[in-house]
């Protein structure tokens, strides 16, 4: 045990015999919660907020607080628990946790999934839960055999008495384990002792996702349930003036038509009549002043504000250098609004009764869902239960609660369980979009060709101004500047500013958030500088990444694995980009061909990632591929445009997705690391757009300063 690490903070644990005769363990996360929980424990006796339970047949059930939206958290978290528990992985199951303060992600201060924080947030606490259970199982076996606990060890779901070779399965020990005193000290394994963590264990949710049995929000069915669709004003900020539901009500299966906050709800026996009913509504909207809005107006607002932004980083005196320079390089970079387009359109099911409320939802925010329902129903927290389903994609969109509010309001009105289903058109046209931004960049190169001054002025809408206004500091929203204010390059004079302009298009968190656009802007401008200096992009970055070994290592690995500098087939070009986001470091090389007829084709992507400790390489690889496809779709195709206050796009015909035929071959190389875990759900996205754009720049000699990339 010498190389085990003692847990610095004594975790509060509570053990009790589960209803089925198993061992149930729960614990509170923060030291502040200790006292409260300890006193609560003495009179409640049984804590339902358990991280794991062990049944007498040996099944280990891990409750996962984070939402499973494809990123593999339903496997990664159980792996952490099982590692410290020394569980037999074959006996490990996962289920979604209910909503409860015990499941707060400490990084988000909410029970929520986002910001690539699941493993990072629960890294210590869920391993402690496993370790504590293990200690109690050891004590139980020692007691059973009347031997010293020091003579026992655990091994893949069993306790073994080393001297005699006797062993007992965990399942046989649960009753005795549940009455053991809570361990005073916990020991966590040193990473070199990991046997499960670091392995590409198959995902626990794969079987259910290949036989149709996985229940997504869309699939929830309850006795007596009705299905609703909602017609919303196409113009942002518009209001309902009047509507006529007569024709809608004549459609067989339509039960009710009613007004809710977001529009007009048509409630029916199933989706199809609800949808037909919605089509049959005649409505008059008060479109309001938002009806004037279009892309040109928005762009002009950005341009008018861009020089007057708040300075968020100011090293040296970049402006003075720029003013004095005769040959500064300048460029304007622009990115469009983007919809999330989760494969499963928004939906939620609510059953609001006098005595309580149940919500079934594919949500990234259990706490926010509960609070939304509490506000609308007036019920206290303990009466509002949230049942998280599988999410057919999340990407930040499902951290919102608009679809939850729809379901709760309609269920209140009709007094029955109601599932609200958004159409794809609703989903595209009533999203919270990735902010469009307008960026002025300028740089002054020194004699050695390296930048001496770097100026980046950003104008665009703020996500936090709506979502978390108290986190907007001094008119600066960190989500707009991440990936821009923290560029790692050794440049003596750097000035980054942000001008908040909120034209009225709702914006929200979109996979990798600010880095989704800022990596494109900064990494492409850097390639412009390298070209101006006549330097190779990899060499140029290498020279500037002083004191940033993690950036440099992924850069070198991606360059090496891609054969950077080696000849390519005619017509192929490479581009590289590196970005840090969510405590992970990713470099990508894209191999691209450009053809007037065929457009841009991305043939190959080599991705190098340092995400700290590797929990599950197979999942990391999948997440890198996933982030690349998400970012590539945006880079090549993604664009939401605004006309007369509404979104022009409506479905996959005009907001197209990458197809398998357009999928490049992707190679992922994971850098071994002992650092704390970084995120993996998002960091694959930022570098792909600049890697592709830089390859196009290499091919055409014309910098790409706007997305989506056009020739």
């Amino acid at each position, binding site marked *: 045990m010498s190389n085990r690490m003692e847990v610095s903070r004594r975790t509060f644990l509570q053990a009790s015999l589960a209803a089925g005769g198993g061992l149930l363990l729960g614990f509170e996360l923060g030291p502040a919660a200790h006292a409260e929980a300890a006193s609560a424990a003495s009179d409640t006796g049984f804590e339902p907020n358990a991280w794991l339970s062990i049944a007498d047949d040996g099944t280990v059930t891990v409750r996962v607080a984070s939402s*499973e*939206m*494809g*990123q*593999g958290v339903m496997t990664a978290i159980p792996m952490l628990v099982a590692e410290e528990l020394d569980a037999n992985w074959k006996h490990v199951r996962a289920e979604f946790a209910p909503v409860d303060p015990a499941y707060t992600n400490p990084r988000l201060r909410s029970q929520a999934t986002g910001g690539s924080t699941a493993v990072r947030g629960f890294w210590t606490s869920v391993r402690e839960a496993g370790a504590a259970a293990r200690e109690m199982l050891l004590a139980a076996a020692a007691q059973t055999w009347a031997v010293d606990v020091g003579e026992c060890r655990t091994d893949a779901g069993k306790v073994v008495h080393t001297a005699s070779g006797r062993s007992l399965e965990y399942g046989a020990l649960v009753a005795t384990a549940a009455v053991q005193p809570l361990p005073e000290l916990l020991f966590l394994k040193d990473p070199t002792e990991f046997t499960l963590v670091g392995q590409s264990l*198959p*995902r626990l*949710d*794969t*079987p*259910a*996702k*290949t*036989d*149709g*049995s*996985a*229940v*997504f929000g*869309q*699939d929830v*069915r309850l006795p007596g349930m009705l*299905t609703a669709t909602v017609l919303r004003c196409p113009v942002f900020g518009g209001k309902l003036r009047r509507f006529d539901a007569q024709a809608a009500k004549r459609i*067989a*299966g339509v039960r009710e038509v009613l007004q809710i906050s977001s529009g007009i709800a048509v409630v029916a*026996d*199933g*989706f*199809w*009549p609800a949808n037909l009913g919605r089509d049959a509504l005649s409505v008059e909207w008060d479109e309001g002043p938002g009806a004037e809005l279009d892309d040109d107006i928005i762009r002009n607002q950005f341009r008018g504000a861009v020089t007057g932004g708040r300075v968020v980083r100011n090293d040296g005196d970049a402006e003075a250098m720029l003013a004095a320079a005769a040959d500064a390089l300048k460029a304007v970079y622009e990115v469009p609004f983007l919809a999330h*387009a*989760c*494969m*499963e*359109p928004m939906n939620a099911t609510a059953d609001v009764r006098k005595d309580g409320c149940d919500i079934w939802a594919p949500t990234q925010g259990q706490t926010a869902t509960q609070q939304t329902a509490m506000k609308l129903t007036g019920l206290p927290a303990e009466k509002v239960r949230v049942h998280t389903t*599988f999410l*057919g*994609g*999340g990407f930040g969109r499902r951290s919102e609660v608009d679809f939850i509010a729809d379901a709760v309001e309609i269920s209140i009105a009709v007094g029955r369980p109601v599932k609200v*289903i958004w*159409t*794809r058109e609703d989903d595209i046209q009533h999203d919270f979009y990735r902010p469009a931004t307008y960026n002025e960049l300028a740089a002054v190169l020194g004699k050695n060709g390296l930048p001496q001054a770097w100026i980046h002025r950003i104008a665009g809408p703020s996500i936090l101004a709506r979502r978390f206004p108290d986190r907007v500091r001094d008119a600066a929203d960190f989500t707009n500047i991440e990936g821009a204010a923290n560029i790692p390059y050794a440049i003596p004079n750097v000035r980054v500013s942000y001008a908040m302009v909120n034209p009225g298009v709702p914006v929200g968190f979109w996979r990798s958030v600010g880095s989704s656009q800022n990596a494109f802007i900064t990494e492409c401008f850097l390639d412009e500088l390298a070209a101006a200096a006549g330097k190779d992009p990899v060499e140029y970055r290498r020279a500037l990444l002083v004191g940033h070994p993690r950036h440099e290592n992924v850069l070198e690995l991606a360059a090496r694995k891609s054969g950077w500098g080696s000849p390519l087939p005619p017509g192929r070009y490479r581009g590289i980009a590196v970005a840090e986001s969510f405590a992970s470091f990713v470099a990508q090389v894209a191999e691209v061909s450009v053809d007037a007829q065929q457009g841009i084709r991305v043939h190959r992507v080599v991705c190098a990632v340092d995400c700290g400790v590797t929990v599950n390489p*197979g999942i990391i690889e*999948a997440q890198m*591929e*996933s*982030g*690349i*496809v*998400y970012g590539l779709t945006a880079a090549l195709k993604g664009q939401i445009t605004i006309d007369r206050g509404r979104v022009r796009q409506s*479905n*996959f*015909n005009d907001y197209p*997705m*990458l*197809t*398998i*035929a357009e*999928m490049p071959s*992707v190679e992922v190389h994971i850098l071994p690391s002992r650092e704390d875990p970084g995120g993996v759900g998002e960091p694959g996205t930022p570098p792909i757009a600049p890697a592709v754009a830089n390859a196009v720049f290499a091919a055409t000699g014309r910098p790409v300063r706007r997305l989506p990339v056009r020739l």
Partner: protein
Amino acid sequence: MVSLIVNGESRKLDIEPSTPLLWALRDALALTGTKYGCGIALCGACTVLVEGQPARACVTPVSSVAGKRITTIEGLSRTGGHAVQRAWVAEDVPQCGFCQSGQILSAVALLERNPDPTDADINAAMSVVLCRCGTYQRIRRAIRVAAADKAAAERS
């Protein structure tokens, strides 16, 4: 009344004949493995097999498939043991999983008519099924695994 043969069983539905098959399956028959993704034949999430051929259930009026054999993901095998499903598990293909019923059924139909598809064949057959999570590379691998598996099974 519309009569359907779904996963080998005859089902009679009291339903508007113009209702898309998708909603007949999901709402009337509680077969929710078939997904709604776009409603206008653009995403493939609703793919089912009609007489073995992939069809977009969201634009297929239920009356048009009366009496025809319809296979949904739930009916592909009793135990999830179809060669394509096994390959999907072996390659750990799904991420969010939402598109995967459509992917699997499309792959089943592809391998039925073309046991040894080239990359181009895979592209042609599978491009109609979108995956927002980007599982395409693993889908391609899994199709190869399933093809090899079926070939081996036929030899033995």
